[in-house]
């Protein structure tokens, strides 16, 4: 039994830290720490810095412009990024489409699309969910009908994260209604500027604009934009679900969130004493800390399995379940720390009008926003189904 990282891994962590301290723009880290929305430019600026260092596409092999990291190195990198309040990179091009093209794309697609993901020329978004197809994704109905050298696409996608910043979308579309629903799905790349595509914002529970719905009306898409074979889309979608999920537990984020709570508790006073002197708040934080420490080890155990080639879908489901629970507990703790002062929507208030530290002003909206964690990426109920299938298999 050995919980230590190797000397090389520790040196790597040190390199990452130095890089982040030197290169991560202060203004961007400040926005992330305060839970503020990032502009398109903020994210592109940070991507360009990572790209210049060769660290942008953490999951890609070297030949395609990735750093060629091991699972452990990827874990260390993402943990340090979270601890330094680096922006969470939109995963759609980097962690989803990229790996799909590398595995299923033809040479032309790899040659043309991958570099444009790396240099920020293209911003990809994801067209999976539909109003009638959420957890039951295979029931999706957006149709792509072959017409000469084109597919004609009709239908609607939803929950399209940061679609407002994107110029491209990869979609799961129905190309056949024969056989099982899973057997008639294809993976198609669509230009958002194409005639017949319309994107509309969805306002979320916190008032923010993070997701969209996308409507397709007789959109003509070149057949060359098909990835893999026609009707192979479900295989590709499933490949993505098991690909690169070592960061799914969000340990770095949770560690940062707990640290943030303790800082806040030392700063604010409630009913005559510092919140950090309230035994009830301290006890709640300590119990969550115990769960987080356990999760940190669970994550390392599963990382060691991944390194030894023994990781499966069940393990990422376990990490997703517990990771999202712990983070939601922490968001809850942070919001409740503010008491009555959590209520005002502080976006328009200046720093000296606020009664709480500026970093904490968005605690309530951020808490509400993070209810999404147990819903997206395969809802926690779907994760339980995946684990149950393994536990109860004949």
């Amino acid at each position, binding site marked *: 039994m050995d919980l230590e990282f190797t000397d090389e891994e520790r040196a790597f962590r040190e390199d990452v830290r130095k890089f982040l301290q030197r290169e991560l723009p202060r203004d961007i880290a400040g926005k992330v720490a305060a839970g503020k929305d990032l502009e398109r430019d903020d994210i592109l600026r940070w991507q360009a810095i990572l790209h210049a260092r060769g660290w942008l596409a953490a999951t890609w092999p070297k030949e395609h412009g990735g750093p060629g990291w091991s699972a452990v190195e990827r874990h260390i990198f993402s943990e340090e990024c979270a601890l330094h309040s680096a922006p969470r990179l939109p995963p759609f091009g980097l962690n989803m489409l990229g790996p799909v093209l590398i595995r299923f794309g033809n040479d032309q697609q790899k040659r043309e699309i991958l570099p444009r993901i790396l240099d920020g020329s293209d911003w990809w978004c994801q067209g999976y969910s539909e109003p009638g197809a959420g957890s039951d994704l295979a029931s999706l109905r957006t149709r792509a009908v072959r017409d000469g050298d084109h597919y004609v696409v009709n239908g609607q996608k939803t929950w399209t994260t940061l679609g407002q910043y994107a110029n491209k979308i990869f979609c799961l579309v129905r190309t056949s209604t024969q056989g099982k629903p899973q057997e008639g799905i294809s993976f198609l790349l669509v230009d958002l500027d194409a005639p017949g595509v319309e994107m509309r914002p969805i306002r979320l529970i916190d008032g923010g604009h993070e997701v969209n719905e996308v409507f397709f009306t007789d959109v003509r898409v070149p057949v060359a934009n098909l990835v893999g074979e026609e009707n192979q889309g479900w295989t590709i979608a499933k490949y993505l679900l098991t690909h690169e999920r070592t960061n799914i537990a969000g340990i770095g984020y949770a560690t940062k969130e707990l640290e943030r709570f303790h800082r806040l508790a030392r700063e604010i006073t409630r009913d005559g004493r510092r919140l950090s002197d309230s035994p009830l708040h301290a006890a709640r934080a300590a119990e969550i800390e115990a769960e987080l420490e356990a999760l*940190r080890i669970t994550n390392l155990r599963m990382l060691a399995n991944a390194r030894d080639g023994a990781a499966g879908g069940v393990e990422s489901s376990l990490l997703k379940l517990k990771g999202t629970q712990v983070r939601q507990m922490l968001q809850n703790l942070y919001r409740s720390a503010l008491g009555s002062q959590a209520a005002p929507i502080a976006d328009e208030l200046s720093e000296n009008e606020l009664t709480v530290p500026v970093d904490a002003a968005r605690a309530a909206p951020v808490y509400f926003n993070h209810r999404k964690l147990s819903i997206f990426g395969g809802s926690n109920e779907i994760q339980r189904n995946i684990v149950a299938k393994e536990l109860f298999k004949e």
Partner: protein
Amino acid sequence: MDFNLSEDHQLLSDSLRRFLAENYDIETRNRTAYAAPFHAPETWSALAELGVIGAFVPEGQGGYGGTADDVAVIFEELGRGLCSEPMLGTLLGLRLLAALGQTDLAARVIDGETRVALAVSEPQVACDLSCLQATARCEGDVWRLSGRKSAVYGAPGADLVLVVARLADAGENAALGLFLIHAPESIAAPMIDGGGIADIVLDGLQAECLSTDCAELVEDALDLGRIALCAEAVGAMSHLIEITIDYLRQRKQFGRTLASFQALQHRVVDMVVEREQCRSITIAAVAAYGTPAQARTVSMAKNLIGRMGSWIAEEAIQLHGGIGMTWEYPGSHYAKRLVMIDHQLGDRNDHVLRMIRLKPGAPPAEAA
């Protein structure tokens, strides 16, 4: 980073698991765990022969192991087999005998000829040594003890009991001494989850002084005992979840197996998630033993396992329905053990308070 058992530990774990499976069925266990002397002497000798007791002590002190890893490997199997032999009391007492150079006594305990227990907690003191009230007074060259010790695990039938007592006439912050008494009278009872427990009324009892400043040693022994309990809980919950799944597969209602109901499947998945978390926090405590992070990490583990062990027990009873309530069904005894582990060596609340006391408001240890 490596989470696999070493070859030696795998052997130890396998042989203990096999021994308990072949020689310690639930009938034997229930027959011996609730009636004096609250254990099975022949099982005890066999476990000693297997080397289980010796593995609690470092080689330099007459044993053949003594790391937190050794202890955790053994207790996980004891938990899986629901073994009610007085291992916890023996672990605590033996660690102190060996550390204080009582080599002959320690050797007899390791051989299984002599049994030892540790009397530390009191009716009003769970795990904060600074609150202990029992006192030791030196009269000429004789030490006499007074006060009452409580929850002395394995005391019924023990040959030796070590008593932690405050040195009298030395004021508030007096040092804690460790005293040896031989086969004292005790107020003995079976525990609700099996095994023997006793209170000892010290009323002027004469004792041999082994140490006049033992607080640190005792705290270390207790922390190791807490790690043992955590590992025992992980073993017990693993077995309990396994038999719960078996039961759900087998039991039919409404013309289908219970295992086919999603509401029940999801509850089992949540139990498995928490079991993995309990295993992880036990690993963290084992790794922290003997480092500056020992006390706080052990308390984290004891807190989490106190909460999750009893929750898993309650869920398991519920998922079984009526059968889970019966004495005859083994699962009910596992459930009792898991709940009652939270009552030993400080419960979830005691340990969350200890976490706060040790390092108030500190963020978790930086990633290793």
